[in-house]
């Protein structure tokens, strides 16, 4: 902080300019996309997306199938890097960083279609997520029951109610249980920002309630973006909404304003959208 202050210009510039500069550097935002595009061959899955999400902010991304929501998350995490534009994570340009480097900086995600370790137990799955977010990934020494990391693993398993199946292979779990595990993996370590890709898909009404409880109970410094078709879930757990269509953002605002927006209503809420 002292360093930052020393770098301030000497003259009595108004504070707003500094704030503007911080904003211009992207340092004030958890996620900042500028001019991000993603092509798949000739198909533009994302076109010129500019998006900022503050630290701790909770944002829903809505839009019909094929709107580019998942591709947006893939560009943020680096699963598919953007073909144009820059991605900043807490001010740092991570556009060309591999996914694991972004994760080590506190970014987390879940997948729309569960990507789990099918031939490992639930406990091992969660353990790997905790280990990946910490040191000792290459360690040849076994982890003991008394090690602190095992407590985190147990806590995460309890959080998503998988204690009963903790030592079962993931391949043997029911679909809903796999979705729960998917969420647990994204909460491991010390996340700073989480991207949820349709986390409620495949959950029972009960489990949806649990999901909403987990999302609202997350520490306030942890922001997230959630893609969710279920408006009951989505609009209850966010403070802002981004609407996407054909790879572009066409509206941003507070949940109430978005719900009331006639254009949105016509396109999504009123239309026969599943």
């Amino acid at each position, binding site marked *: 902080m002292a360093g930052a202050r020393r770098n301030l210009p000497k003259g009595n510039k108004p504070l707003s300019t500094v704030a503007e500069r911080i904003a211009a550097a992207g340092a004030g935002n958890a996620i900042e996309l500028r001019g991000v595009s993603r092509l798949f061959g000739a198909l533009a899955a994302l076109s010129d997306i500019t998006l900022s999400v503050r630290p701790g902010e909770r944002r829903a991304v809505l839009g019909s199938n094929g709107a580019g929501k998942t591709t947006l998350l893939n560009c943020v*995490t680096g*699963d598919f890097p953007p073909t144009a534009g820059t991605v900043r994570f807490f001010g740092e340009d991570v556009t060309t960083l*591999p*996914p*694991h480097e972004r*994760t*080590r900086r506190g970014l987390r*995600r879940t*997948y729309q279609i569960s*990507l*789990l*370790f*099918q*031939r*490992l*137990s639930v*406990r*091992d799955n969660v*353990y*790997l*997520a905790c*280990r*990946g*977010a910490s040191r*000792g*990934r*290459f*360690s*040849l*020494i*076994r*982890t*003991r*029951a*008394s*090690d602190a990391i*095992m407590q985190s*693993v147990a806590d995460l398993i309890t959080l998503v109610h998988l204690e009963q199946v*903790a*030592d079962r*292979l993931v391949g043997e779990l029911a679909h809903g249980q796999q979705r729960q595990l998917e969420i647990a*993996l994204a909460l*491991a*370590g010390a996340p700073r920002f989480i991207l949820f890709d349709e986390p409620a898909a495949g959950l029972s009404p009960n489990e949806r309630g649990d999901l909403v409880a987990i999302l609202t109970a997350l520490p306030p410094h942890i922001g997230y973006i959630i893609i969710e078709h279920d408006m009951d879930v989505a609009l209850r757990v966010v403070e802002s909404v981004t609407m996407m269509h054909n790879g572009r953002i066409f509206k941003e605002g507070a949940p109430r304003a978005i719900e009331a927006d006639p254009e949105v209503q016509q396109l999504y809420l009123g239309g026969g959208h599943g």
Partner: protein
Amino acid sequence: MALSETGTARPIGVGGDALSRWFSDHAPTLLLGLLLVLLPAATTDFVLDQIVGWTLVLGMIALSLMFLAGYGGMVSLVQMTVAGLAGYSITVLGASSLPSISLFWPWWVAAPLAILIAVAFGTLAGALSARTEGIYTIMITLALASAFFYLTLQNWSIFNGFNGFTSIPAPIFLGVNWKSALPLYYLILFCAGLSYTAVLYVSRAPFGIALQGTRDNPRRMEAIGFNVTAHRIAAYAFAAVIAAIGGILLVWLNNQISPGTAGIQATIDLLVIAVVGGLGHPIGAFIGAFIYVLLRTFALDALVAVGLDGRRFQTIIGLGFLIIVLFSPDGVIGLWRRWLARAATSRRGTSR
């Protein structure tokens, strides 16, 4: 427990009465170990060297393949080459009957250096193939294996070409001639036991669990913070250490090394050994090696006895491979596990 699924061997950090649990978990392994330690009292040098010795050495090299394929999902055909390179290195750096080539450095310089060279090569092979998957991994490693084979065949200044090296003098250290039957047997048994234990242990250590993670879902591994490529290369390095030690023991056991030692045929045989035994557990490598050695040793006589050409023993191995893979894609271990499962269900059925 010893033959349980790779992923569930033992939940990390489950307590209990540690010592007695450990013994009951490892009873079959301990029994087998004890049997092997006492074996020299009950058998001939032929069985010790030609059957058990070969089984353990080939088993070690197959174990390095099992580690990569079973835990990492990487079918590397370069493991026999790693062993061969270590074998050639110890012959060239150490002693052979060819003073024009061999440097005659003492064993304690030559052996570590040979391992180092082979591990460097194995790691490099890993770096070349770590970004590939499935059939491409097989192709790249097979290309490396055949390149090495032709190099040894055509180079006379280092590898002595077609002839290779014969009558390799015995390493003598601690006042023991390690090529006489009994010391060599115990040296091999020690190294094989250590490799087996190391692989079992590491499979439940963070490195090994993560390797299984990269096998099941490399993309998710990246997303939870692992550098998948680096992890795979490290696995190749780990496997190469085991293959390299196996390669040195192979030279001492076989008393010779030539291009065929790590040729295409040997490469395929090693794959057959690992797959027939089963990639689901480290013991599979040794089971496969045992079956292979038995066939190789006795199939010839058996074939001649029934009036067939003894050289057909490769056909028998091929047929055996076909039958096992057809009936049990996860090898002998898979048969064993299914048999155990069936026994367990029928027992539960009768007790009810």
